[in-house]
């Protein structure tokens, strides 16, 4: 990465680096947080990071396919959010807790 005066335009690799950093932050949140809703939001952050990669590759290859893939990722994320949040509601209704460490029936 060249240091010094800022260039007029950045190469696509900078976008990919940003995408990788956001994905790593999503993994970090997924592993560190204990609230089931925040864990779910970290997954959304990872999906967003992957979308940025798709759009960048689409720009590099001058094809529209990356946009289609990222469109499908958005659709799947919407479906996943609807089902996931319904599951969270059910878990809360049955256990009165949002801590993922306390939802451990499968462990024993």
């Amino acid at each position, binding site marked *: 990465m060249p240091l010094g005066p800022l260039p007029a335009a950045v190469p696509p690799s900078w*976008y990919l680096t940003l995408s990788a950093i956001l994905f*790593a932050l999503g993994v970090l949140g997924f592993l560190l947080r204990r609230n089931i809703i925040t864990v779910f939001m970290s997954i959304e952050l990872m999906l967003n990071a992957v979308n940025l990669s798709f759009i960048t590759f*689409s720009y590099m290859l001058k094809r529209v396919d990356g946009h289609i893939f990222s469109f499908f990722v958005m659709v799947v994320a919407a479906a996943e959010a609807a089902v996931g949040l319904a599951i969270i509601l059910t878990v809360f209704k049955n256990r009165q807790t949002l801590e993922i460490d306390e939802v451990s029936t499968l462990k024993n």
Partner: protein
Amino acid sequence: MDALLFMIFAAIAVICGINLVVQTHPISSALSLVGVMGALAALYLLLGGEFIAAAQLVVYAGAIMVLFVFVIMLLNAGTEKKLTVRPLGKYLGAPLLLLFFGMMAYLIQRILPESSPVVFGAFQSGTAAEIGKSLFTVYLLPFEVTSVLILIAILGAIVLARKEVD
């Protein structure tokens, strides 16, 4: 100008992403995620994806995040318990994470072929017309399968929400 815009929105995205991870209250995390999504929408515009940028704002920041905020409000989710971190992770975690980011950035710079910088307006096929044309010809089958997926998701959400599950 393009580089300046990239820097501004990348900084917003990274700061909001870090805020999402370190905040203990879910509503703060949700608002940070909205910030990330808004910044990413601006970056999509820079890359020529006008349709995806609009969809990002409408579907993600609009619909999905409102769903999240509704659930946080409904469940009255409060601050989570303090995480117990072992001393090894406390002192080694942040430096190792920075090292990991640095190596990742270096690798991406190295393995990617030399390519022309991203200029706004260089990619013109991100319009709704081009995406629609591709969606209804080449990607027709995945598109139709997606509608079945959404139908299943709706049914699943309804079943989960109304029945008492033990």
